[in-house]
């Protein structure tokens, strides 16, 4: 059986988790794209949106739409999605953003090393091929990578990427406390502590006017808050 057929046969075990906050404009398109890429097990976690993100996601049959009644943060929503995937028997869990920045075509690149048994976690990285990435985001990311390395002991090229894949084993052992953007860095700490095998894979990112205009993205102010939360969790 060639690899493409093998992939198709394994897709039933792959769950895609999409945390979303106020993404009613694009959430249906994001889900449709993931479907088109051949993945049917989709879990959307609405993180207390004030728009009708949850309603829009619920309208699509066959996907699981969950809702946080109050906003708890991207990390909390991702964790809820992962817990849901575990309950549903997932063997591989892929997390991706709900704003359309991630290309579902990259999912196969993320899951392939796990299917081959080569690693437990695959991290999508924007910085191995940062074409189209604004210069200030590249600088922010590099700084974030250094801080994450210093605090959590693991250096990766994109510590803040939410496009990742986890084996069932990794999903069971990774235990984070961060609810917001510090979640992505805390996962790296867990990889380091539990000595999980990981790999970085280049991913495409689509910077649209819509996604760049979102207030809750990891800008400078949110970056400072994330840094504070990362330090606080160490000293507390």
């Amino acid at each position, binding site marked *: 059986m060639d690899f493409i057929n093998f992939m198709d046969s394994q897709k039933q075990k792959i769950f895609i988790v999409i945390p979303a906050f106020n993404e009613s404009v694009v959430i249906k398109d994001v889900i449709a794209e993931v479907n088109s890429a051949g993945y049917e097990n989709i879990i959307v976690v609405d993180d207390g949106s004030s728009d009708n993100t949850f309603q829009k996601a619920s309208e699509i049959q066959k996907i699981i739409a*969950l*809702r*946080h*009644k109050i906003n708890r943060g991207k990390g*909390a929503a991702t964790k*809820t999605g992962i817990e849901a995937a575990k309950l549903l028997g997932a063997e591989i869990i892929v997390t991706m953003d709900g704003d359309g920045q991630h290309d579902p075509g990259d999912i196969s690149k993320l899951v392939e090393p796990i299917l081959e048994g080569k690693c437990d976690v695959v991290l999508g990285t924007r910085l191995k091929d940062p074409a189209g990435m604004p210069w200030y985001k590249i600088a922010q990311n590099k700084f974030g990578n250094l801080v994450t390395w210093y605090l959590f002991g693991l250096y990766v090229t994109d510590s803040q990427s939410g496009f990742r894949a986890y084996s069932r084993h990794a999903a069971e052992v990774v235990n984070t*406390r961060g609810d917001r953007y510090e979640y992505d860095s805390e996962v790296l700490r867990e990889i380091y502590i539990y000595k999980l095998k990981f790999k970085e894979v280049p991913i495409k990112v689509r910077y649209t006017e819509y996604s760049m205009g979102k207030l809750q993205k990891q800008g400078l102010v949110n970056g400072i808050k994330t840094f504070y939360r990362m330090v606080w969790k160490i000293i*507390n």
Partner: protein
Amino acid sequence: MVIHLYQIIVIAISVVMIYGGTKNFIRGKSGQTLTKLMIRVFVWGGMSVIALFPEITNLLANLVGLQGNINAVILTGFLLIFLMIFKLLSAIERLEQNISELTRKESLEEIKKK
């Protein structure tokens, strides 16, 4: 004994604070325990005593081995405040995690029902 303006201000505020706490305690308002009242009397009463008799801080300075009575007061106050803030932040952190856990459990009920 010469009374200065700052002493009058400190004593006035202390009286108001102790009176307010005592009134709330007597009325049995929720959250007003005897311990809280005692702490209030200790803190504000202490400030009044120090304002009226500043030389008492020399005793405190000698007790902890600090040079300069005002340094002893400021440093002690700073340490206490730092401890309180640390405790508060830890409590807030625990509460935030509890809220997230509860929110998660509620949202996962949808899956468990199916």
